[in-house]
């Protein structure tokens, strides 16, 4: 029988079966289940595959590169904005090249179901000049991993596998194949290419640029890029990744009227595109995310109007694709969908009942009449929901770690009583360096680490911060007199407000660790956390 797997799980199983030795990742929707699946896999455990979460995407990718350097196959997994964090190593390991196969899995989130933007990771792949694979369905996600490791080892390059929310979080039956063995340790023949001093970097970059033609050739003959020309030449469709499904959903049964190029490997197979372009009167480009392929084909001034897609307004530029929007662009009109009745209210997400963040926000809110509005700099995590009514505590949310540094910048500008609210895991991910900036100048800000001892938003994964926050802050140089611990509970409200007020009055860096485990954690997990904190302090 087929195995019922999420797109993310199919990809993870594919990695295990391709001889993976380690997965490195930081949780982030919609990518989290890839790593979780391998963590739970008995096979992975018996094979000794590394699965522990990393502190952030950059440390994860560097560790994966280290494993590849040692000759083994490694995978690094993140959400799209995570690649911003890891972009330094991503760009440079394209120049150094890899040794053991290295696959970078990035899950994009068009429609921003759980993200701040809709950035398209294919841009990064193109930027770094590495091959990009974009599976269209669960079975292909499984199959493509084997291929990804193969071409990574063949071309000595990292390979980017791009997922999108709908494929990551959709299940289907998947046929599993045999597993191949892991690589042994085998150091690179030439280590100079990994030492990117300008002398070596210049040589390596030239090599990378020269790989362009072999990568293009690989795309042309790839079994994941299929061109089907039909006699009817009125419309040709280029369907990238999951977009292929939405196209097929609409034309299924009428395939003879449409020539189709399915693209799941980049660089774009130029010859195949050319054939389609010559064959058809009009070309519709359907791709999830930014109009990257469409822009390539588009005449800059769009004089002939032959290319249709997002730039021509046939498909919305914002939000993810769906079978209806794609159908409309192909020329199918459906009518008569019912409306949502007016009485249906919006139901936005909200903090769980009994959540410690709520008690913290209530304490901050009580002080707002004294300190003034619009001074609370927030960060990424469940507590970002404090930006919504009824709490309305948080004013900003930009990227991982920006709470502390934005509060610092505002304080530098002369803003008094700037508050940063950051979670425990976000703090260790990207907050620590910003705190050092503030300590270095003794900037008058109050940093509140809302510590629920978990990466709660993505499903309560283990936080590397557990039991270490106090020592980290002291190590960074926070004054012990202005490092306070509070427990966010109703019964402590008055006391907590007083502590907060005192620290807001202090004209230097204060850190308040507001600690209470996530209400979603099991009793056993809470006990485990308690023991860990005790053992570390």
């Amino acid at each position, binding site marked *: 029988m087929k195995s019922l797997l999420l797109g993310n799980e199919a990809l993870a199983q594919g990695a295990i079966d391709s001889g993976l030795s380690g997965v490195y990742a930081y949780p982030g*929707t919609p990518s*989290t289940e890839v790593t979780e699946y391998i963590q739970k896999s008995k096979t992975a455990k018996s094979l000794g595959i590394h699965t522990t979460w990393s502190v952030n995407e950059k440390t994860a990718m560097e560790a994966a590169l280290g494993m590849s350097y040692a000759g083994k196959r490694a995978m690094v997994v993140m959400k799209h904005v995570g690649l911003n964090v890891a972009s330094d190593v991503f760009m440079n390991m394209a120049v150094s090249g890899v040794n053991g196969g290295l696959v970078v899995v990035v899950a994009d989130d068009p429609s921003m179901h*759980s993200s701040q933007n809709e950035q398209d990771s294919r841009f990064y792949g193109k930027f770094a000049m590495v091959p990009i694979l974009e599976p269209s369905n669960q079975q292909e996600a499984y199959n493509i991993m084997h291929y990804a490791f193969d071409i990574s080892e063949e071309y000595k390059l990292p390979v980017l596998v791009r997922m999108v929310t709908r494929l990551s979080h*959709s299940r289907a039956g998947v046929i599993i194949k045999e597993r191949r063995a892991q690589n042994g340790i085998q150091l690179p023949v030439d280590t100079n290419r990994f030492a990117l001093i300008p002398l070596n970097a210049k040589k390596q970059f030239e090599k990378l640029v020269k790989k362009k033609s072999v990568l293009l050739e690989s795309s042309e003959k790839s079994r994941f890029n299929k061109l089907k020309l039909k006699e009817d030449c009125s419309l040709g469709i280029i369907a990238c990744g999951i977009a292929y499904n939405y196209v097929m959903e609409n034309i299924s049964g009428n395939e003879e009227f449409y020539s189709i190029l399915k693209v799941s490997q980049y660089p774009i197979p130029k010859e195949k595109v050319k054939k389609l372009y010559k064959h058809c009167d009009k070309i519709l480009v359907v791709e999830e995310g930014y109009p990257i392929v469409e822009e390539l084909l588009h005449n800059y001034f769009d004089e002939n109007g032959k290319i249709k897609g997002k730039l021509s307004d046939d498909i919305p530029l914002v939000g993810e694709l769906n079978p209806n929007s794609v159908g409309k662009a192909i020329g199918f009109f459906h009518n008569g969908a019912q409306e949502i*009745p007016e009485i249906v209210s919006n*139901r936005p997400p909200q903090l*769980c009942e009994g959540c410690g963040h709520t008690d913290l926000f209530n304490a901050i809110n009580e002080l707002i009449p004294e300190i003034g509005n619009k001074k609370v700099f927030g960060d990424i995590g469940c507590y970002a929901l404090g930006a919504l009514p009824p709490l309305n505590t948080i004013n900003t949310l930009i990227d991982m770690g920006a709470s502390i540094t934005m509060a610092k910048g505002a304080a530098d500008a002369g803003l008094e009583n700037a508050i940063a609210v950051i979670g425990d895991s976000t703090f260790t991910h990207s907050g620590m360096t910003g705190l050092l900036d503030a300590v270095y100048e003794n900037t008058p800000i109050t940093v509140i680490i809302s510590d629920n001892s978990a990466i709660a938003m993505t499903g309560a994964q283990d936080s590397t911060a557990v039991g270490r926050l106090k020592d980290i802050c002291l190590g960074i140089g926070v004054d012990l007199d202005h490092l306070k611990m509070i427990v966010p509970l109703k019964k402590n409200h008055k006391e907590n407000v007083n502590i907060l007020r005192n620290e807001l009055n202090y004209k230097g860096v204060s850190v308040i660790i507001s600690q209470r485990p996530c209400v979603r954690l099991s009793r056993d997990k809470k006990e485990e956390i308690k023991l860990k904190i005790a053992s570390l302090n």
Partner: protein
Amino acid sequence: MNYNLILSGVGGQGILTIAAVLDTATLQQNLFVKQSEVHGMSQRGGAVQCHVRISDKEIYSDLIPQGKADMILSVEPMELLRYLPYLANKGWLITDSNPFINISNYPEKKELYEQIKSHPNHIIINATAVAKKLGNTKAANMVLLGAASTLIPISEESILTAIKKLFQNKSERVINLNIEAFQTGKKLAKENTDFVY
């Protein structure tokens, strides 16, 4: 054969268990299935939905097109109506009558029921009360699945096997409770007496 079903509710209400039973049962019958679900932020008490597609041929889109859902099965009455644009002309609306109120502007229950009843094919049952009577309100989702089961082209035998498989790590009592919940739901739907509020 193609059958499209939308499951709806609020994050944490357990619609994924219904989906898991359907998926497992479908694969047992060697049919194709695709099931798209919501993870992440919306799971925190927000509106969540899940698309389940069953077919004897390859399924392409993970999402059901608008106007193509044969059924919306909801564990909450307002969430049922949120997905009406997906409902096919002769599609069915099935829901638990119990509202989940975690917002201040939740509509009047009566108005919700009237909206639902204006559709010819609907079943409203107090699944939570039935499950409570059986011993655990958590089994309300199996009551609803039971109520919907005769309309879904999957055999009862496969569904029951799937329930047993999914709850295999739980006690005998829990397995039996869920099976009983399923069968009670099925019986109630058969009687399909007008829901009185």
